[in-house]
């Protein structure tokens, strides 16, 4: 059941030139805050009517602790970046389906693929799967060295493979380069989140391999609650037949049309 909670900003850390980490705390215990689910954040300026969808980057449910990582792209995220510790944020969550991990057991090898602000939900997933005993490999793409964030978290959870477009860190290239060079048939579940190009690459590259590939999508959202039909995506033979906010944001790569 989604709920609305007032969180207080504990910390706001700038991770890169335009990526920020918000550590938040509420008095309530959080339920349903699983990796891959998202929240809708109310902005503290009512000129903005819509809440902003952000993935759960980390969560300690019993302590009411939540972390969000966001890039400043438009007016809303720029406003978020101005907020100081002590400020209240009203957050609706947890929403969406989250990543499926019921098929996984300890020592299973899993692959996480992400780029840019697709990484935050994978950070939470990496932690959760590592705790479960899975062997987590993460392939992450960034444009350049200075845009890297999250590396420590992924390294702490398993193997971290890095690509940058300009070769300033890791392999020069994209996640496609990493996939081409470091693919292993041992992987039994793949999770990807990132820009549309990245998701398409993953979908195409892994189309012939018979393993579950989960893609986490973005879509403009009105409600996040299945009420406005603002977020539809085509799944299977349907045409704009599924709500990203309800049936997603995570879809199976074999079914979703990108």
């Amino acid at each position, binding site marked *: *059941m989604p*709920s*609305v909670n007032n969180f207080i900003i504990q910390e706001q850390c700038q991770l890169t030139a335009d990526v920020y980490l918000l550590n938040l705390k509420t008095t309530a215990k959080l339920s349903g805050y699983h990796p891959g689910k998202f929240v809708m954040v109310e902005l503290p300026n009512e000129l903005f009517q819509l809440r902003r969808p952000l993935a759960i980057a980390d969560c300690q449910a019993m302590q009411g602790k939540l972390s969000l990582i966001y890039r400043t792209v438009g007016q809303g995220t720029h406003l978020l970046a101005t907020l100081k510790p002590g400020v209240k944020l009203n957050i609706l969550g947890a929403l969406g389906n989250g990543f499926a991990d019921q098929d996984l057991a300890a020592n299973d090898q899993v692959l996480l693929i992400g780029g840019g602000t697709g990484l935050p939900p994978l950070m939470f997933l990496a932690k959760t799967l590592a705790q479960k005993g899975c062997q987590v490999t993460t392939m992450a793409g960034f444009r350049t060295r200075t845009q890297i964030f999250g590396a420590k978290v992924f390294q702490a959870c398993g193997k971290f493979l890095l690509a940058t477009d300009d070769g300033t860190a890791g392999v020069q290239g994209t996640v496609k380069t990493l996939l081409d060079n470091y693919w292993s048939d041992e992987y039994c579940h793949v999770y990807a989140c990132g820009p549309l190009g990245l998701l398409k690459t993953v979908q195409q590259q892994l189309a012939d391999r018979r393993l579950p590939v989960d893609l986490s999508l973005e879509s403009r959202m009105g409600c996040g*609650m299945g*009420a*406005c*039909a603002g977020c*539809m995506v085509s799944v299977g033979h349907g045409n704009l037949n599924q709500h990203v906010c309800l049936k997603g944001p995570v879809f199976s790569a074999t079914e979703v049309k990108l």
Partner: protein
Amino acid sequence: MKLNERLAVELPGLKLKNPVMPASGCFAFGDNRYAEMFDLNQLGAIIIKAATLEPRIGNPMPRIAEVPGGVLNAVGLQNPGVDVILRTKLPALKAKYPNLPVIANVAGTAEADYVETAKRLSHSGLVDALELNISCPNVHRGGMQFGTDPVSAQNLTAAVKTVSPLPVYVKLSPNVTDIVAIARAVEAGGADGLSMINTLLGMRLDLKTRQPVLANQTGGLSGPAIKSIAVRMIYQVKQQVDLPIIAMGGISNAEDVLEMFLAGASAVAIGTAIFHDPLIFPHILADLPTKMDQYQIKSLTALQQEVRGRINEN
């Protein structure tokens, strides 16, 4: 006076324990996650997403954009068609909330579509009233055209009335020079009530892509930004046309509800504000009695009489 008596309102075909309902298109068919957060039995009624004769995919994505104080949408009447709605959506709603009055929003491109859709809904036993959507700005034929021409509006209303025993509320478009003329026309067509207002036609351009943010280019503007326009139109229409009005357009708190009643409303619907405050219905229903005390309003019916008195004086 008991709490429920203070909030109860009566409109043609609708005895409502309170006047507050979700606006069409902003609450699907009740099959959304808000229903996990509060009991929909609290609602005065529910207005469902537009039903069309055939299924509609709606407009391409993106369909939602934000503008100052409001939202642009170009969902474009996506719905599974009246038959699926009657077979699955409405029975599911009725099963969970047997006592919740249901208003079905009806849309179409040609008069015949509207009439046939209205007919099927009317004879299903699953619906308490119709809301004729002659005002959707997001479909390229039909929709708003009916809402901007008094003659088509009147004819459409009359045609639907001949096939439907249910009370018919006609939902007006604000994108007109003279809203009173349209209201008069649908009154002449036999409308039992009005719904006011649908969205205003707006647009947002993306500086990076140089293109409209919405795939459909334009979209309907809703939310607080349009409230003063809604109040003005309802007020103007109420001076001239003696039909009950379901008011909507930017309502986001209990005071807005009362302001709509002052303008001439008999009930209210809330759309965009739901997205902002997922608990807006319980919040408003809790606040209404307090605010009514504050402004010395005994009951909504009394407030309506007071407003009628003022109109008769003029």
